[in-house]
């Protein structure tokens, strides 16, 4: 009896999964959905969704700060994934149109990303795949490596734009065996003064926008321990590291090997 019930349930889920039409308004959600094997459910993505390459061929619904509500509506989605970045009004407007909106909380740690994976999987009727993906991802970055963490300066955009402790990027750096020099700041994204950066004297610099040459041309950059040790890292993928998606975990592993060597 129980077996039969389970089989019926499973069938229902499977049928539902096939019939879904989903729209993702954030690049990280799109990446998660493809990673769950549900890419075929997607009928629309944001203009910034460029990974995996198949996502680029889907209908575009505008940028994530200001999605085109009419376009989303015209795609007749069963479910729309939106997040804190898209603003509360987007969700309200879509709900008012009778569309099911899954508003996901902002990820402030790597664990939050796994939570997002599970929430998306549940909404798509793929709980099992979600659990498997969460396990697979957390295995890539289970815990910080042993030993003293490396003091790390992370510059996301030119002009000293970095992240404080309220960002998954800071947590990702921790799991890679780094310690964000601005991790003590109770903020997300902000512009740090160069003088403070010099003063905190990071042992490694992780740059996503400026080139090493530009970085070294800043006043007194040569005095930084990171520069003296030759640990100015520009080789990580900006999109992969700055989106709370599945690719971040591979980047954490890469950063870990850059900071602490193999193993």
């Amino acid at each position: 009896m129980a077996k039969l019930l389970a089989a019926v349930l499973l069938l229902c889920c499977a049928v539902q999964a096939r019939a879904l039409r989903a729209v993702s308004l954030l690049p990280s959600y799109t990446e998660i959905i493809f990673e769950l094997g549900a890419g075929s459910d997607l009928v629309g993505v944001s203009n910034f969704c460029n990974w995996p390459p198949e996502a680029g061929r889907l209908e575009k619904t505008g940028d994530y700060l200001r999605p085109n509500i009419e376009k989303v509506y015209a795609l007749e989605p069963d479910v729309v994934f939106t997040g804190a970045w898209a603003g509360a009004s987007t969700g309200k407007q879509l709900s008012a149109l009778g569309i099911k909106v899954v508003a996901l909380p902002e990820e402030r740690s790597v664990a939050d990303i796994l939570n997002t994976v599970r929430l998306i999987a549940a909404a798509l009727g793929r709980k099992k795949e979600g659990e498997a993906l969460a396990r697979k991802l957390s295995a890539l970055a289970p815990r910080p490596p042993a030993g003293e963490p490396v003091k790390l300066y992370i510059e996301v955009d030119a002009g000293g734009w970095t992240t404080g402790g309220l960002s998954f990027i800071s947590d990702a750096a921790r799991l890679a065996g780094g310690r964000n020099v601005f991790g003590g700041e109770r903020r997300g994204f902000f512009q740090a003064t160069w003088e403070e950066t010099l003063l905190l004297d990071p042992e490694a610099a992780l740059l996503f926008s400026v080139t090493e040459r530009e970085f070294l041309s800043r006043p007194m950059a040569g005095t930084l321990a990171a520069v003296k040790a030759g640990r100015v890292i520009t080789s990580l993928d900006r999109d992969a590291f700055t989106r709370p998606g599945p690719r971040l975990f591979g980047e954490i592993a890469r950063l870990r090997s850059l900071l602490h060597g193999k193993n």
Partner: protein
Amino acid sequence: MGKISLLLGALAAACLFSLAAGPAGLAPDIIWNLRLPRTLAALAVGAGLGLAGAMFQGVLKNPLADPYILGTSAGATAAAVLCFLAGVERTSPVFFLAVFAGAFGATFLSYWLARLAGRLSDAALVLAGVAVSAFLSALVMLALTAARERSFSLFYFVLGGLYSAEPGVLAVSALIIAACGALAMARWRALDAMALGAEGAYHLGVSPERERALFFVFACAATSAAVALGGTIGFVGLMTPHIVRLLTGPSARSLLPAAALGGAALLTAADAAGRTLFSPAEIPAGVVMALAGAPFFMWLLWRGARGRA
């Protein structure tokens, strides 16, 4: 004389603040290598914008004129952003020429539109400047949307700030600004005559068309050099001449140098404040100036309205 020393005192105080304030305290190498270049950049940008404001307000006989309101800054910024997207080096002469062309083109367009609208009244010029600025800002936003990869650093440039002034850009910009100041001082009396209007100036022996063209070139060159160094920073050009006029009187002979000193002091203080108020986070000098300057502009309009009533 006492009033000039007041101005010099303000400038010295702003420099001291900028050189001494920061998380590293009074570490000599930080002051020398970090805060000094940044202070010099703020001084140059402030002086350039103050000079440009004094020139525009004089030659257009319009106390609301300033490089930000006339669209000069917006034109320079749009040209700079296009240069970044095209991969033009920030130290190359092409960059400076393009930024100047953008500044001059936008200013001339505002001026031409205001004349087209009939009399060259204060309000018509401001309206034309707003229209030109809005269009150019939209153009910049369009460019930022197109340039996803680098959009944030460009956005930062548009906001206006002095995070890391390149020594090469600083040297060229400071030179251009100093030259514009000297050339303007060499014909200060023409600027005074223009304060009586084009017809008044003509009958005092000054060719209004020639002076207007010359001072447009000087003011646009000073503005574009300031923008190349510090991005879009508003209200320095508007506020400075009004403040220093209270000290020196309206004659360009004392107003031009005072506006250069005053603008330098104002922006240096604003930049130092932006760097230290919310440390370790930095507020771009352009944002600090807009916070202080927009209420000032409202006050000017209110005072003007009261004056006419």
